[in-house]
């Protein structure tokens, strides 16, 4: 177990290192200079040079990369002299547009994204797996057909359509729900829940199709397995046969897809956050990209990579937990 964590952890760090190098150097291919952006309009070349020197942008790329990495681990000072800015660890750079540390921007946005995505992912996985489970047990009946049609309808629609439709229906017409908004769950759990309900529902409807189809296919396969017949022959009630024996045996690919979905979404649910006007990481990333606010973009890309790597490690670990035939080492 310890060996697994060590090996998988170092592999994860290596991946993150690769991503950071790639993004860092890619941003220098972008034909824009942070110094010009900071300087604003009607800027003389001498001023730009001055700012570049101040920010260390005249240094070789490798040194700049080293500075950036050092900032993440121990923090750093950006610029020199009177205008120097103290950026504490984990320093992800400085947003000159809003004059604040990128880490505080991310720190504000991250809880919003985590709330939307975790709640959404749990809802869509539960909905999808339940639909697939029921349709497999009622194969070929109208229950099967309507469950799968429902899931497919969701998959063929778009979030900006469904999201807005649900908002119009539940917020403006029926007035059952307030406008979706983020309240910290530590301040008011009820408000947090009610504010998140609409994004969760939308995401569940849109993303459950793949889980429904996968669960249905897996269940149909495991239901014909010998060990399911054994479970019945033992005299277990149908519910236990289906849940504890059939579903459990087919859950591995579902966990895989869930891990990938979760990792990708945690990096920023760009469209969802924009549709519901929630300032999460995806919202911040899209805005930063529009404004060429490179330090922020860089940080969001790194964060997305971090989540994907993290969920993959967790999924690997879960495999061994689910299937004892998988040995960690």
């Amino acid at each position, binding site marked *: 177990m310890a060996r697994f964590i060590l090996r998988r952890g170092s592999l994860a760090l290596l991946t993150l290192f690769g991503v950071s190098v790639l993004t860092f150097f890619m941003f220098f291919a972008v034909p824009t200079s942070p110094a010009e952006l900071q300087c604003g309009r009607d800027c003389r070349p001498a001023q730009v040079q001055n700012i570049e020197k101040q920010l260390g942008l005249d240094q070789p790329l490798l040194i700049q990369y080293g500075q950036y990495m050092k900032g993440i681990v121990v923090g750093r000072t950006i610029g020199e002299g009177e205008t120097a800015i103290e950026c504490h660890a984990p320093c992800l750079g400085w947003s000159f547009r809003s004059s604040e540390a990128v880490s505080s921007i991310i720190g504000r946005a991250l809880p919003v994204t985590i709330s939307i995505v975790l709640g959404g992912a749990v809802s869509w996985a539960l909905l999808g797996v339940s639909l697939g489970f029921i349709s497999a047990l009622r194969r070929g009946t109208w229950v099967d057909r309507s469950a799968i049609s429902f899931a497919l309808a969701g998959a063929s629609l778009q979030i900006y359509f469904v999201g807005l439709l649900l908002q119009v229906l539940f917020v403006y017409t029926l007035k059952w729900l307030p406008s979706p908004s983020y309240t910290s769950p530590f301040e008011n759990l009820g408000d947090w829940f009610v504010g998140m309900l609409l994004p969760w529902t939308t995401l569940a409807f849109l993303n459950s199709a793949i889980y429904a189809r996968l669960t249905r296919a897996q269940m149909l396969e495991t239901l014909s397995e010998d060990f399911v017949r054994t479970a019945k022959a033992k*005299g277990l*009630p149908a519910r236990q046969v289906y849940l504890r024996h059939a579903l459990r045996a087919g859950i591995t690919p579902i966990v895989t897809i869930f891990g990938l979905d979760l990792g990708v979404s945690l990096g920023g649910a760009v469209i969802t956050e924009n549709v519901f006007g929630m300032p999460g990481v995806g919202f911040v990333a899209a805005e930063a990209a529009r404004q060429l606010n490179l330090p922020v973009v860089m940080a969001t890309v790194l964060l997305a990579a971090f989540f994907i790597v993290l969920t993959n490690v967790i999924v690997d670990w879960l495999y061994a937990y689910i*299937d*004892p035939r998988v040995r960690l080492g």
Partner: protein
Amino acid sequence: MTNTESSSPDAEDFLRVEDLKVSFSTMDGVVHAVDGVSFGVRRGQTLGIVGESGSGKSVSSMAVMGLHDAQRATITGSITVGGRQIVGCPEEEVRKLRGQTMAMIFQDPLSALHPYYTVGRQIVEAYRIHHPEASKKVARTRAIEMLDRVGIPRPDKRVDSYPHEFSGGMRQRAMIAMALVNDPDLLIADEPTTALDVTVQAQILDLLEDLQREFHSAVVIITHDLGVISQIADDVLVMYAGRAVEKGTVEQVLRRPQHPYTWGLLNSVPSLHGDAEADLVPIKGSPPSLLNRPSGCAFHPRCPYAGQNGNRSFTDVPELLPVLDDAGHLVACHLPADRRREIYQRDIAEAGVAL
């Protein structure tokens, strides 16, 4: 068991199957998997059901366990287990009998055990479902006791192993331990040794015999292997294309077989006593499709003696009738009795299984 005196069977049949018919509707038509089969087993007695794949032997046993999907299978006739009717009985009542009164052992213990749960946990589950009052600890002790009983070394350690950590023979032992954990009165073993090495086969059969003597249960063993039958069964039922073609004691069916299909089966078994150079004689052809069963005697397309009694083989389904001068021995064949005896003496007698 060949020595019937030691197991002293009860007078009443514990399992009684009368005119059992099982059919499945498929896209291509109705499959008559079992078509009017009757048999009975007393406690302490072992019935062997022999036949090729598709002869309906497994389908019959699944019907006894009530394991057929009620929406797909049509079951008629009568199955009584300890006096209780299984056919048409509500699922919840049959479920309570399953694993408790009647238990089943399957062919391939690797696929029949759940790969994600420890052997112990699966036995505990089988025990606790019928003993809800038993604590986990009690059930675990019981599981270890059963593993010990079926001959698994260091059962207190192996109880926490997963099926893939067991060898094939050990897995089948664990499967038997799980089937017997609730002291069932009826045990159905569906090809229990087919997936195992020959050396392990004998051990498993010995174990089944021992356990039957100990638990005094009724045992049905399904196999295509006449060697297994000769070792363990008291009575034999030979099935072909969903019907019984011959029935009797082991002595009657293996020593004085009456049906050409039984002869074929015996001829396909290597003999220890005969000429080592002599080729085995396979039954020509392959088992018939149950969707489109041959007319008359279903065996006629493969029977070398078909047509020796007029056209009856091709038109009439032979009835299962008593063999003359051999009480309890039944056969479904159109050949006249003396003709059968003659053919048997001439062609078949030297082959056969060592009893």
